[in-house]
């Protein structure tokens, strides 16, 4: 863990003012919730606080958090893009420190931006989080951790980085579709319901709605555990696959 605290501080400073994190962590989801929520306002009666803004807030925050995996692919190789890879190779910094200094600051930043987004949705759109903002933040932290770990894993370990990096958004979009991020898919039948289980966003969205609207926390906890375990798995794999030479 040599050099971790220095790299962590540097990572936090960079991420918190990273224009991509701000754009895709706050601006884009806010716009998406506003547009789609307004667009579908005729479909929801708003009874019991379940309005179109409520639905799209609940599904858009996890979707945009998952989408940050794409940003992490580039962050994973930023030393290479900034042409400072040689310094990292010479410096006495451990592999674990380098990998964790990418994943942890990004996860913390995503969680902070998700909190900002929740406050915006609550104050501007009147979205009712049923007093469960802290629990939701824990889930977003876990999902953010998984997204950052997957993005870092792809960025650091892909041999054909140029080919892979461009297509990560496509599976994310498919996962989002299966998770009901664009429209509810519950009416599509048994086959889609079964297939949708492969999407972590399906577990996350289902867990959130069951927790907030039916008071059932089992799926919510499963979603936290699954995303966190996947996050740890991809972090370990990122460390194992990482060679400092990829920064060259």
């Amino acid at each position, binding site marked *: 863990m040599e050099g971790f605290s220095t790299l962590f501080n540097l990572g936090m400073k960079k991420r918190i003012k990273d224009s*991509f994190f701000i*754009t*895709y962590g706050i601006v*884009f989801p806010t*716009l*998406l919730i506003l*547009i*789609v929520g*307004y*667009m*579908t*306002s*005729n*479909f*929801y*009666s708003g*009874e*019991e606080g*379940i309005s179109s803004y409520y*639905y799209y807030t609940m599904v858009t925050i996890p979707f945009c958090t998952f*989408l940050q995996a*794409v*940003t992490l692919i*580039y962050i994973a190789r930023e030393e290479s893009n900034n042409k400072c890879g040689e310094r990292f190779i010479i410096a006495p910094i451990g592999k674990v420190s380098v990998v964790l200094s990418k994943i942890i600051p990004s996860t913390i930043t995503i969680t902070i931006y998700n909190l900002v987004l929740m406050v915006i949705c609550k104050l501007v759109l009147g979205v009712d989080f049923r007093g469960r903002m802290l629990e939701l933040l824990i889930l977003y932290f876990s999902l953010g951790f998984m997204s950052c770990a997957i993005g870092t894993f792809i960025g650091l370990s892909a041999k*054909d980085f*140029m*080919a*892979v*990096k*461009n*297509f990560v*958004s*496509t599976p994310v*979009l*498919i996962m989002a*579709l299966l998770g*009901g991020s*664009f*429209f*509810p*898919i*519950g*009416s*599509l*039948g048994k*086959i*889609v319901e079964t297939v949708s289980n492969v999407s972590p966003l399906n577990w996350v*969205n*289902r867990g959130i*709605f*069951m927790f907030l*609207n*039916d008071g*059932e926390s089992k799926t919510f906890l499963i979603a936290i555990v699954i995303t966190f375990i996947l996050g740890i798995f991809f972090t370990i794999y990122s460390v194992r696959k990482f060679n400092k030479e990829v920064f060259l």
Partner: protein
Amino acid sequence: MGIYLVFKNEFLRSLKSKKKLIITLLIPIMAVIFSMGINSIMKPSISLGVIDNPLGNDFKEKAESIRGVKVKEANEDAINSEMILGKYSAVIELTNDNLFKVKSLDSNFEKPIQNIVDSYVSSGEVKGVEEILDKMEAESLSITERAVGFMVLTLMITSTIVACNLIRDKEEGTLKRFNISPRNRFEYILGVYLYNLLFTFVQISIAIILVSLLPMSIGINTGDFFILGAVISFIASSFGLLIACLSNEELKASLVSSSVAMILALFGGAFIPIGKMPDALQRLSNGSIVKWLIEFTKSAKNGFVSSGDWIPIIIISLMALAGILLSIKTSRRKFA
């Protein structure tokens, strides 16, 4: 000649990395086929949840004899989330006052279903469901329109990735060298554009051929689908070129293309029919090229019976050409 040379160079460059070429070619095809598969099973339907089956099996049998209607026993503990996630259009339960109460998140849906239930209680017949299904059918997007909407969204993103060769060429200094040659920069831009256009059309063609081999209905004949494919390629490659010309970094281009394409698709009615949007958004949707693509799809399905059917393709052409011209204009700084 310059355009051809750039086109040829793009083609030869793509052949250098076979793995990248296969990924670039196949992933959008898989996404398009997947979206068509999902869309082909999305038909207007009514799924009713019943708690403790208050109306008995007779209601279930009579309702399910109508095509598109399903009656399922609902789990009371997860009823709200299952309605939110769209599993049930409405839920019927017996209240403590011995009344049959219908609950739905869509107020436009609640009343008609309540009327059907009340009518069943008094007459023993399930009446009025067909009218609701017909109305839903008329108001919803057809399979082809949905498929076309998702195809253009996917290909707008992947076309940008192909057009990002321009950003890489700028970083490697190729554009600077081209600029001091006797060739004009618009030849380079058009060469990249033509390669992207052809590549996208090949992707769509493969997807159409594969879909036509699968037992999947897409609601349009293969010939017309190829025409739609050509229009989608035209839109997607123009969009990709514009984003690549406006962006300095690949990451920026990739993320901007995903978000702008999604917003255009949303405004254009690719997910939600324009007729069901609030008035202000209906007017705003005229600015989205995806709306005109969906209008063109309707015209193609109807067989271009009136002269007005050609208006969408004229608007699409003008918008796409404007995108190409803007790309050429804004590419000046890339060649500096």
